């Protein structure tokens, strides 16, 4: 945990910087990360990283400079000199046609409501035992891989705008286990997430694999001919779809630049199916949340899509300044509201002759952002369902469709939601998650290609 000496040093340097007439923010980021990677039924890598970063931003009228230092911070003098260097950089920058905005921390905040010391200090042998139990209980004749990232993130931020500060510490974990048949080559996957040590269990993955294995073991792959299909998207695919849909449709910068699929829509327009409501919801306990927005405001719940209507855009502080809008108290906590469908998706599709269940979409990308066209392929645990019965696994199938179709031709939505971990470990530890219904049934989804393998 950050000691008082370091906290006091950063605060003192902030005061000294302010006395020099410099507009600056200082952000401390400390991560304690551990990752166990599994490959070929073995621990293939077991890592620990303890890293400390200082991020500095200096604004000088219509110019700005930013700098990140990863390494030893040293003394107050060293930090002060670093800020002077960034100030000089900002001074030599080019004037912009808008004024960049310094973060104004709205209130003093100290929070660690999503911190668990047991997860922060989790012994790697716990992870080894969970994976071992899965291998033993599901069957050691399969090939297993996966990863389990866990750790803590601690941040402390001050700016010269006022004397407030925000300290935040949280833990997070992301668990994946992939089961591959060594000859038939099909793959199943299980994902778990959470911020407490007990949130990931061997039993959850064992039960998940055991429930679907008979279908894969006893049936050949089904080749899906290109065409339109009813598709049930599972939580991982729904999380990916929702993230891209909102980023290209409800981000203030994308909308103002006329880049996304809502460029010609206005607030209040019907854009998606009336059963679709999407919030930025810091109160949702399934999501890792930040206490303040990037502009320093206490975060609040805000609708982006409400009963299918375009309800709001999210503006960061600089986009708001550039386009003359108000910054929003955004938390980055994406939450799609549940529907009224049964918890079991098979029950919901029992009256349909043929439905594809696609729990995850691999390597999604957008050939045409203006039209909201995306493409990606099915991968783990994807199956063909007939009259509510799983009948066979499907080969790797490509979906190429539009966000407005996927969230516009909704037939049913699960009444249960689940957390999908959307963190990556590029650069620094930065936990993120979305809350989505466990499934969503959509009509008329375009399958555009299918391999003859999994």
């Amino acid at each position, binding site marked *: 945990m950050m000691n008082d000496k370091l906290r006091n040093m950063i605060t003192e340097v902030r005061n000294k910087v302010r006395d020099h007439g410099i507009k600056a923010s200082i952000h401390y980021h400390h991560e304690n990360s551990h990752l166990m990677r599994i490959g070929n039924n073995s621990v293939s890598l077991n*890592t620990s990283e303890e890293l400390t970063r200082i991020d500095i931003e200096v604004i000088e009228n219509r110019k700005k400079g*930013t700098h990140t230092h990863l390494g030893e911070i040293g003394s107050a003098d060293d930090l002060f000199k670093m800020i002077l260097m960034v100030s000089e950089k900002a001074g030599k920058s080019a004037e912009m046609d808008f004024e960049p905005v310094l973060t104004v921390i709205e209130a003093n905040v100290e929070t660690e409501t999503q911190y668990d010391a047991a997860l922060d200090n989790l012994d790697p042998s716990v992870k080894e035992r969970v994976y071992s139990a899965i291998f033993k209980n599901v069957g050691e004749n399969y090939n297993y891989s996966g990863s389990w990232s866990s750790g803590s993130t601690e941040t402390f931020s001050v700016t010269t705008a006022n004397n407030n500060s925000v300290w935040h510490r949280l833990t997070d974990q992301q668990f994946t286990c992939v089961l591959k048949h060594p000859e038939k080559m099909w793959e199943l996957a299980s994902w778990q997430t959470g911020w407490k040590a007990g949130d990931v269990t061997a039993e959850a993955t064992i039960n998940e694999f055991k429930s679907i294995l008979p279908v894969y073991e006893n049936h050949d792959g089904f080749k899906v001919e290109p065409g339109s299909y009813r598709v049930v998207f599972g939580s991982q695919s729904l999380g990916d779809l929702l993230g891209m849909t909102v980023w290209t449709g409800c981000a203030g910068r994308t909308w103002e630049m006329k880049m996304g699929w809502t*460029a010609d829509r206005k607030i209040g327009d019907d854009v998606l199916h009336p059963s679709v409501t999407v919030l930025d919801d810091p109160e949702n306990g399934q999501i890792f949340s930040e206490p303040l927005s990037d502009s320093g405001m206490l975060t609040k719940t805000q609708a982006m899509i409400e009963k299918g209507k375009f309800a709001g855009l999210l503006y960061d502080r600089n986009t708001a300044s550039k386009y003359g809008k108000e910054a929003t108290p955004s938390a980055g906590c994406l939450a799609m509201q549940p529907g009224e469908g049964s918890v079991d998706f098979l029950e919901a599709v029992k009256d349909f002759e043929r439905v594809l269940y696609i729990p995850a979409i691999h390597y999604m990308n957008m050939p045409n952002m203006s039209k909201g066209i995306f493409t990606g392929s099915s991968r783990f645990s994807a199956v063909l369902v007939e009259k509510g019965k799983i009948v066979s696994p499907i080969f790797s199938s*490509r979906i190429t469709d539009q966000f407005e179709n996927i969230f516009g031709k909704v037939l049913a939505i699960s009444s249960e939601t689940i957390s999908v971990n959307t963190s990556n470990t590029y650069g620094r530890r930065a936990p993120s998650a979305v809350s989505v219904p466990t499934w969503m049934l959509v009509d008329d989804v375009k399958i555009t290609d299918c391999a003859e393998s999994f």
Partner: protein
Amino acid sequence: MSIFNDLREAVTRNIGKVMNSGAQYSDARWYEDDSSEMLMMLDGNLEGNDTTIESGLGVRVLYGGAWGFAATSQTAKIDTCFDRAMANAVSASLLVKVKLDMGKMDGHTGSYTSPFEIDPIDVSLSEKVDFLKNVDDSLTEDWILRRMIRVQIQRMIIHFWSSEGTYTQKKLINTFAHMTAMALDSDRQMQRRSKSLYCETEGTRGWEMLTNPVLWSGHAERVKAELKEVLAAPELEYGNRSVILLPGQGHLQVHETIGHPLELDRILGYELSYAGGSFVNLDSFGKLKYGSDKLTVSAYGSITNSPGTFGFDAEGTPERDYLLIDKGILVNCLTSRAMISEANQRAGREVFAESGGASRSTAFYRAPIDRMTNVNILPGNDGTLEDIISTTEDGIIVDNPTSWSIGSNREHFHFGCEIAWEVKNGEITRVLRNPSYQGHTVEFYNNLSAVGDESTWVVEQVENCGKGEPNQVMELGHGLPVVKFDNVISGERK
């Protein structure tokens, strides 16, 4: 004593300690300096003016056939860092089915410096900003809605020590740049045309590379002219036709469907839970007809000026020039020491004779994994772009990706591109917008029907290849000529 001497003493002492405690192998990488700078001008506003300095130590310990890794940004914690790496390896060794080993390599010393005249980090910000403004001015027109100029530069000084007595030192310089112009077409869809800084095979990689107008900044007029044509162009219709890839598109095709499937850790199943696997297996080498006889692909390729050229990999192995695909037959892949040892052990024969020197990591705080170096299609005998067009009955020429989506085993793919030129009966007839194409990798490369000569060959840079858990980005290069594939599904089904 200097910081370097203190650190060397601590590292060698700790390597000795873990070896005496039963480790099979250990190495350490100290990033003395990892500096980068990113400048991003959007519509004339310098919205990105960012520098990063990183420094620290990454330690690997191989114990009981398993890897432990630890990293620290605090040099005072070197002993703790080794202790953690050792403890992680011991913990990992409790669950090991196939024990890893590094094979044998004699200790050696060496150093490498990227060729450069002017260190781009040392150029003043004022000079950089002036240069970007000039490029932005050259891209400015009333009808262009968005202009984006992005420059990324890197300087890394990396020391490496191993328990075999190897010591290497590297100074790497990288320079990347992109310009993009965007405008709305008649259907109010945002179209774009872009150009990235590319390399000359034997040039230098400093500030002088960025300011050479031939390699980047001098392309603004062409970018604008082609964007204007795209805005007025009809959409590409769905159909089966020949597709000619210019290097701006071809390099990503090679990257995604030759480079990634030929990473040995991926072939052996170590990336399944994130990036995916590969349709290639250990029996494929020497047998799989990956492409037509016209397809010959090299790794590294003796390219002196590329981000995929780095002297020694993250295990101290010298970079090596060799073929991956020889006249269509798969013969080798991208390898590191532990992976070839495991592959040979699994196959029960020697599939790979020596490491390809492809073990790389993005930073001191990430463990090395198998990565691309330079993966190149060698020039062919089918002449210039004009020669290839003249022999095309019905096709399109495409350039620069807008989107890429690849199957999990790299067995199939879908690409969107910025621009297409229609070719009918040996001549370019018109420009088309929203081009895309898709295919199945082996079938696609076996339909390779023309490979351009050296006049069409350039080295394209990639600055952000993502892979690995924990995630890593990597810089690399692809040298390639103009290439033509027949019988390709292109455009989108209605």
